[in-house]
């Protein structure tokens, strides 16, 4: 009996929903989005860069990408689910039709189930458009066909059932229940926000290796479960495997479907199939009221047009109060605060170690994470405010009041802005509270106020204008919300489609970064101009909104326009005209700055430029060029003007065996060339300023061995401001000027487009990432610079009197002249043509190690980790001089620079170190999980003085193994010595995770370590793992000896430069025969393990010992460059370990493991708690978590 009735109810609702325009709009919208994004991912638009999924070698229609893609698009459907589900459950309360339904002969179950089923059917039809859109996209002919693989229908269908369907059921159940039980729609939207917050919390948790599983469970959409499940998938797996419903993904789906089912059951039991609540009329009208008192005079107070300006504050306050008092508002704000806290706990960490919550970071984080909630509040409450009177049925009462039309408009707008002020105050208090809770009490109120109220508040106020005007003009609350969501989507994605100018992106401006060193610095000027620009625009918008404000009942657009024209008084016209003029003038001024004084270049333009450089000048790559043998430079830094003048002389030498008649010089663009001469050639013969390519025809060819002098006088001066990529080389405090900005000789392949897909877009052939390891011609160049080998370096740097200027080399002389400070530096040993000039108001921390001066130039206030850095330098110098070779300089300097870039880089004896890396790290010595990364990072950079500045590698495959991998290894050893082996496990666990993630994101092909092609996940992360395991296998001293021998042979060598294979030979010689096989596994191939312990038990032997029986399984896999894995036989020496209950090893020894399953028996002196294979995760294991298990008694 139940069934047909449910179907009848459902069918009625379904028919209704397919008569609603909105259903078709949703369908069309998702279909279009899916279609466009799919063909964009398949390379249909040359200027579009979606950055979705892997790209490169992963097909746009690969099962993995489709799964990710269809799921991700469906998350945007949250609002649609809210609208459809909410409406189905709420419609009878909205239209007061519920008494009719509740009194008809249907059961509660039929009523609820019918509605729920109907809403689900509608939603599933709507969301099927995503799959259909993708499918349609795959048939679109105008795509890059190398990005489309064979189509498999199941790849489109599976995500729908695994991801979309469960989400619709769970989220739908939640919304349905809330709307049905609450008999209101607001709880639905609030819970949508809460769902979204849990998603964000999952996102922030997932940043830490140890929380990924939890993140995968609590993400209600299942995205982080999907990510966790597929995080290590290689290109081949992404292209071929259907995402299985297993592991955390399965758990997630089951968990949330269970929650959904529970909600439905709860809803069923709690839903009252009756009049809602008590009768709201509590007031009774007493009988005596019936007799009216006629003796009361009517009040005599004529209504006048009162001073509207005096009414304004009162109205603002009224709107403000009614907003902030609403429960929904409080809940959303609370969600925001909670989210700030959660994300603050887990971001800004390196290797799981936190940084100090300095105000600039907290402001950035709190302001940024809360931003989304601000958008939600602006969107929702602009609608609430605009519709407040009308929804309460008071529209007509209010419209006939003798107040000017602008009054309600202005009061609502200003109230919404006041709400923003309140929220930002909340953000500030949350930030301060967070800092205090972290035990950090240096609250920089100025930074809070400037950032939140000087910058962000203006953004939000501008956004309020837009939101209120949209609500006014559209005159339909939900359509207004929808328009705003479209606007947000548009402003998020327009950059990807090549619309990058801020002049047409309300209310954006060039991105800014606050740095403790440089404050808001040069970012202030564009900010002020853009704010003015958008403020005038907002005034115009507001005038328009005011004119279109609906007063009365005529909502026909023609009527509204004609009444707008009536309202457009001369005063308003004048204001609008002035506003429009100001808008145009300011816009013009901005345009002058961004496009005329500076160059406006989109990402696509830059690609075109690189492509053109290659197309025009690649022909000269092989033509013989002289090399720089010495650099003498005079560099004057004018920090206040953001100006730098660089004069200099290069000695250039023809080291080739042919005469050279043409010399090519590269300069950066946007430079003022006062002089550029080679020998007697005073002017370049051809100048291509856009490419920065200057051609000199020598009057007399340079014979082999002949020398010439290149002289230059360049001026770098930032005039005005740019639309993006604000120049951070020259700033008020913290100049960091790299030698790459000075003239370079010969064609430079460094700027060529690297990504093959991008190259194809620009009509270029795919290119090899690096030259073959045995390419002897390529080995003539080192991997740092192509126009020099070893040089002598001298530089005099001047700066303003309050700053210190630094360049590599020994400080020879320091003086003051004409109110400027001068510093003269000179290299003590041959160095690479690789240096930088820095200038800032520094404090200096000095120390000594033997005869080496240790200097740390830091920003006042950043003293936190100076001791760790000094210690890092000392321990490193100790270890490296003992084990490798002597240090070639007389100083070791660390120089802080603003956090516009986040790296540390090793120049000869000088290491610029970003303020964002290490200087504000907060290492808790009590917490044995914390990794002292200022110490570690310092050790890594110091190690580069050996691996990079003594050993210089040829510019071929494997180059970075000799620089980065060896620097990683050296730093690991210093850290191991200082902190012990225990700490290393956690560090390596992070490295393993990042390696496996890195190879999943590979765009071309994964290389074995010895042939690494500048792939960070290989030379850093795999390098760490491999070298750490290697020293464990063959012994640290043994390995160091090999390195030292290698150093002795190749340090400071002239071309051809050494290569990774030469080091490998040294290592091979030092490796015992038993372990020779690991060199192949580690360096020459991509080898992975799947080790796990199947069972473990122990028994007392009676002699006080315990016998542990282990059954372990080992699988060894060889992967090809795309990640296709092949199992190979195991015959390896692998650690077997037994731990006591405190995690100390009772037993740790290598056993030869043969075959897939292996039984082992070992004896330990105490009760064992855990045991397993490769317990320290020395081997690269895709599932490192199952190596050790509990030992049963």
């Amino acid at each position, binding site marked *: 009996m139940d069934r047909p009735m449910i179907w009848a109810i459902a069918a009625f609702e379904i028919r209704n929903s397919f008569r609603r325009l909105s259903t078709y709009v949703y369908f069309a919208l998702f279909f279009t989005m899916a279609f466009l994004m799919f063909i964009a991912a398949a390379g249909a638009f040359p200027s579009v860069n979606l950055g979705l999924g892997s790209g490169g070698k992963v097909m746009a229609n690969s099962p993995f990408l489709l799964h990710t893609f269809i799921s991700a698009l469906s998350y945007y459907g949250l609002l649609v689910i809210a609208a459809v589900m909410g409406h189905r459950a709420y419609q009878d309360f909205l239209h007061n039709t519920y008494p009719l339904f509740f009194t008809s002969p249907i059961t509660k179950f039929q009523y609820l189930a019918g509605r729920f089923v109907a809403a689900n059917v509608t939603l599933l039809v709507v969301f099927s458009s995503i799959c259909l859109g993708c499918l349609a996209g795959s048939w679109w002919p105008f795509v890059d066909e190398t990005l489309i693989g064979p189509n498999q229908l199941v790849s489109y269908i599976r995500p729908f059932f695994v991801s979309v369907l469960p989400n619709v059921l769970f989220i739908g159940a939640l919304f349905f229940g809330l709307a049905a039980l609450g008999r209101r729609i607001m709880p639905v939207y609030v819970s949508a926000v809460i769902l979204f917050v849990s998603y964000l919390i999952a996102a922030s948790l997932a940043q830490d290796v140890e929380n990924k599983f939890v993140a995968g469970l609590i993400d209600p959409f299942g995205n982080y479960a999907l990510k966790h499940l597929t995080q290590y998938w290689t290109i081949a797996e992404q292209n071929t495997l259907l995402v299985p419903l297993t592991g955390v993904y399965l758990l997630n789906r089951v968990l949330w479907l269970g929650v959904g089912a529970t909600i439905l059951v709860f809803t069923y039991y709690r839903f009252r199939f009756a009049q809602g609540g008590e009768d709201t*009329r509590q*007031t009774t009208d007493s009988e005596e009221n019936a007799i009216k008192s006629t003796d009361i005079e009517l009040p005599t107070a004529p209504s006048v047009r009162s001073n509207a300006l005096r*009414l304004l504050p009162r109205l603002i306050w009224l709107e403000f109060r009614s907003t902030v008092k609403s429960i929904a508002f409080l809940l959303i704000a609370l969600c925001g605060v909670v989210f700030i806290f959660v994300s603050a706990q887990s971001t800004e960490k390196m290797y799981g170690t936190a940084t100090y919550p300095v105000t600039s970071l907290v402001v950035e984080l709190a302001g940024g994470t809360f931003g989304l909630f601000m958008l939600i509040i602006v969107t929702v409450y602009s609608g609430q405010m605009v519709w407040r009177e009308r929804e309460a049925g*008071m529209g007509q*009462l*209010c419209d006939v009041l003798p107040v000017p039309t602008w009054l309600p408009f202005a009061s609502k707008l200003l109230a919404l802005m006041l709400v923003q002020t309140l929220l930002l105050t909340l953000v500030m208090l949350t930030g301060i509270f967070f800092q205090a809770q972290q035990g950090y009490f240096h609250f920089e109120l100025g930074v809070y106020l400037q950032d939140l109220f000087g910058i962000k508040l203006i953004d939000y106020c501008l956004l309020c204008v837009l939101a209120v005007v949209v609500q006014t003009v559209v005159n339909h609350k939900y359509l207004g919300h929808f328009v705003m969501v479209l606007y947000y989507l548009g402003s998020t994605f327009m950059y990807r489609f090549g619309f990058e100018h801020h002049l047409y992106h309300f209310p954006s401006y060039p991105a800014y970064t606050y740095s403790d060193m440089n404050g808001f610095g040069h970012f202030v000027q564009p900010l002020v101009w853009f704010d003015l620009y958008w403020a005038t625009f907002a005034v115009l918008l507001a005038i328009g909104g005011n004119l279109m404000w609906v007063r009365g009942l*005529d909502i026909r657009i023609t009527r509204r326009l004609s009444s707008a024209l009536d309202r457009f008084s001369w005063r308003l016209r004048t204001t609008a005209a002035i506003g429009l003029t100001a808008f145009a003038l300011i816009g013009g001024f901005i345009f002058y700055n961004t496009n005329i004084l500076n160059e406006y270049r989109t990402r696509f333009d830059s690609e075109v430029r690189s492509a053109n450089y290659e197309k025009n000048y690649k022909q000269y790559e092989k033509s013989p060029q002289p090399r720089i043998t010495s650099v003498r430079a005079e560099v004057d830094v004018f920090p206040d003007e953001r100006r730098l003048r660089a004069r200099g002389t290069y000695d250039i030498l023809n080291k080739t065996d042919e005469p050279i008649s043409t010399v090519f010089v590269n300069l950066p663009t946007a430079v003022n060339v006062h002089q550029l001469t080679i020998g007697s050639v005073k002017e370049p013969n051809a100048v291509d300023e856009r490419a920065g390519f200057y051609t000199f025809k020598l009057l007399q060819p340079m014979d082999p061995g002949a020398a010439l002098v290149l002289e230059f006088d360049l001026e770098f001066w930032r005039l005005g401001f740019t639309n993006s990529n604000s120049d951070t080389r020259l700033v008020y405090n913290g100049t960091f000027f790299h030698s790459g900005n000075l003239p370079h000789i010969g064609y430079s392949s460094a700027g060529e487009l690297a990504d093959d897909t991008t190259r194809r877009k620009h009509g270029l052939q795919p290119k090899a990432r690096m030259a073959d390891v045995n390419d002897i011609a390529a080995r003539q160049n080192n991997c740092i610079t192509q126009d020099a080998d070893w040089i002598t370096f001298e530089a005099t740097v001047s700066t303003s009197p309050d700053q210190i200027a630094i360049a590599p080399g020994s400080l020879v002389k320091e003086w003051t002249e004409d109110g400027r400070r001068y510093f003269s530096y000179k290299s003590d040993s041959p160095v690479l043509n690789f240096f930088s000039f820095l200038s800032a108001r520094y404090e200096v921390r000095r120390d000594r190690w033997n005869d080496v001066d240790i200097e740390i130039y830091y920003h006042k206030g950043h003293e936190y980790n100076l001791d760790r850095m000094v210690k890092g330098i000392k321990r490193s110098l100790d270890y490296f001089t003992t084990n490798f070779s002597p240090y070639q300089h007389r100083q070791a300097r660390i120089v802080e620079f603003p956090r516009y870039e986040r790296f540390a880089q090793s120049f000869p004896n000088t290491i610029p170190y970003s303020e964002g890396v290490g200087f504000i790290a907060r290492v808790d010595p009590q917490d044995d999980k914390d990794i002292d990364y200022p110490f570690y990072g310092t050790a890594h950079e110091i190690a580069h003085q050996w691996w990079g500045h003594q050993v210089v590698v040829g510019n071929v495959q494997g180059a970075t193994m000799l620089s980065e991998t060896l620097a990683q290894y050296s730093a690991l050893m210093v850290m191991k010595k200082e902190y012990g082996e225990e700490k290393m496990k956690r560090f390596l666990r992070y490295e393993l995770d990042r390696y496996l993630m890195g190879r999943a994101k590979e765009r071309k092909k994964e290389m074995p370590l010895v042939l690494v092609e500048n792939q960070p996940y290989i030379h850093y992360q795999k390098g760490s793992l491999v070298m750490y395991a290697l020293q464990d296998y063959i012994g640290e001293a043994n390995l160091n000896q090999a390195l030292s021998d290698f150093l002795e042979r190749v340090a400071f060598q002239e071309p051809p430069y050494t290569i990774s294979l030469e080091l490998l030979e040294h290592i091979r010689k030092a490796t015992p025969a038993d372990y020779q096989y690991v060199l192949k596994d580690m360096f020459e191939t991509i080898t992975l393990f799947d080790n796990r312990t199947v069972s473990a038990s122990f028994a007392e032997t009676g002699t006080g010992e315990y016998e542990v029986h282990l059954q372990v399984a080992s699988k060894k896999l060889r992967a090809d460059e795309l990640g296709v894995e092949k199992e190979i036989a195991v015959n390896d020496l692998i650690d077997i370990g037994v731990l006591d209950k405190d995690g100390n090893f009772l037993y740790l020894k290598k056993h030869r493991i043969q075959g897939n399953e292996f039984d082992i028996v070992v004896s330990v002196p105490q009760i064992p708690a855990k045991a397993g294979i490769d317990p320290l995760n020395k081997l690269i294991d895709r599932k490192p978590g199952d190596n050790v298990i509990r030992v049963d008694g």
Partner: protein
Amino acid sequence: MKLTIQNLSKRYRSGVQALNDVSLTISTGMFGLLGPNGAGKSTLMRTIATLQEADTGTIVLDDLDVLKEKDEVRKLLGYLPQEFGLYPKVTAWRMLDHFATLKGIAPARRRREVVSQLLEKCNLYEVRNQQLGGFSGGMKQRFGIALALLGEPKLIIVDEPTAGLDPEERVRFHNLLSEIGENIIVILSTHIVTDVSDLCGQMAIIHLGEVILMGEPLGLAADLQRLVWKKVITKDELPQYYEEYQVISTRLLAGRLLIHVYNQQQPDASFDEVIPDLQDLYFSAIKQHEAARLQSA
């Protein structure tokens, strides 16, 4: 005070001709606008109340152009819409005080006086601190009148104010209205005939967007003397009577039908004379108007 409406027309986008060449002159006192649902009463009221535009025609209040000088009109206007809501969580006092502020009644002391007087007047003083959400229909309607009375209006428009009120509330409401409508213009629209006959000195009947009758209710009804006849019949006979006579109303009476017919003389002896009231006037006017339109169509 005189409100003159001339040749006012309004057609909605749906094609409905809501007002068709309406001309009316309304002077001080209560003016009743009578018409069935959908006659165009509300459209006319809203247009006078500055909430809607007309397609053609003028409305002049003394020398104010109502359609153009809206702001000036709003100072003189008190308006009670047919349907309205109130913020449920706000008390009567605060709501009225708020509106008083918006009507420019200052200073606060004066405003307090006005608000309390008005609440007293509308018998809401005792419930002044209760939330509006708890008000009954009648109380809400009286509160609406209090709102309309704020600021000494010269023109009060009340749109179907008694719809949905119980008889007692209606009486109270009528008393309130009759008291204020002495020196100012009060326009009351309704489809309930007795509202008009009880309260209004002047009236107009509006049907299908057109004014079909205008004058004093008593005089107009008197004009029907010896033109309306009644008879009790059975239900089955009704079609036959419709055929033969101009039936202007039917009413059930003890299971049979009492019909009123319009006829120049007594149709036959079975018909009795009726002393015509406004009801008869109303129904006959509408019937005649419909018949006329049918003919012309």
